[in-house]
């Protein structure tokens, strides 16, 4: 039944085509999956969510004394684009200073991964996660300083 075969093959190909190969690469070989100790004072944790799709993304950075991001990890439960966006975000923030990392914009992530318009919010989530992680780190540092002052 050659005709039937062609039809099934077409159907099977369609969903894959939604994702660009870069997204598939990050989805299949995600970089930096895992967790850092969230109670460590050198670690900043960003936890963000996209309620419309029920995605949740955790991005963590470890910052050294010079303010440089020396490690990054993520865990994302969501669609392929959300996983790829956060995977790429961890790759990009590593080795950057905090100020440099804050300059990473969702459009850069979306451009790199060739995300379609309906998936732009996934790259937005990754940008928010970076910001949230760095803000958590700063809050931890300032409260640590306060404790020192009070001692």
């Amino acid at each position, binding site marked *: 039944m050659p005709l039937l075969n062609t039809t099934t093959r077409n159907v099977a190909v369609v969903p894959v085509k939604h994702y660009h190969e870069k997204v598939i690469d990050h989805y299949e070989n995600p970089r930096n999956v895992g967790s850092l100790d969230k109670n460590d004072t050198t670690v900043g944790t960003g*936890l*963000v*969510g996209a*309620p*419309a*799709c*029920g995605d*949740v993304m*955790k991005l963590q950075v470890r910052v050294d004394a010079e303010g440089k991001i020396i490690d990054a990890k993520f*865990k994302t*439960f969501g669609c392929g684009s959300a996983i790829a966006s956060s995977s790429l975000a961890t790759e990009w923030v590593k080795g950057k200073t905090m100020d440099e990392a804050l300059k990473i914009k969702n459009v850069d992530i979306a451009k790199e991964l060739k995300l379609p318009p309906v998936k732009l919010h996934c790259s937005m989530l990754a940008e928010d996660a970076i910001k949230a992680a760095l803000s958590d780190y700063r809050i931890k540092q300032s409260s640590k300083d306060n404790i020192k002052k009070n001692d």
Partner: protein
Amino acid sequence: MLKLPRVKFCSLVLKQCWNCDENLSLTSAFCNKCNKLQPLNPDYTHFEVLGIERNFSIDTVALVKTYRNLQGRFHPDRYSTKSEQEQQFAVEHSSAINKAYRCLLHPVERALYLLELADQPLHEGQIDMEPAFLMEIMEVNEELAEAEDKETVQAIGQRNQEILKRLLRDADAAFSAGNTREARSVVAKIKYYNNVYEKVREYEREHGILD
């Protein structure tokens, strides 16, 4: 000659049968005089298509009955010997009935649709989820991803069902009180737990637990 557009005072008064020009009744899809099927009102909500009250809480058993009854009356097969117009209208009615039924049968879809009708769809604008809530979602997802046996997965599924049940009750209360803001934030939570539910179902399907 200058042709003036006909002024519509009220759309209900001016709707007439496409076949015999008789004024149409508001509630019937058929002409009272010639009994021909009329086009579907494009402004109808899913609730109006099925002729049920706009509510979050609906009787799904009754919904199934209503659906079957309506499909019995509007299915295009019933119009195969009728005029081309009526066949076309039957296709419109029938597909709207299908769409409405599929949407309203599932409580999550129904909730999302009600938010859309209230002009506050979930996918537009920001909803701030509390960090503690996001942490909880992260943890249950991790637990599920690391689960090694079906007992663990089913225990997670069971717990998740309880949470969903409670949230659906909260959503019902918010929708009934006309508090869309509150409803929207509850529905956002439901969406997260529903994803967990879907994952548990997927696991069960893959392991042949589900019939």
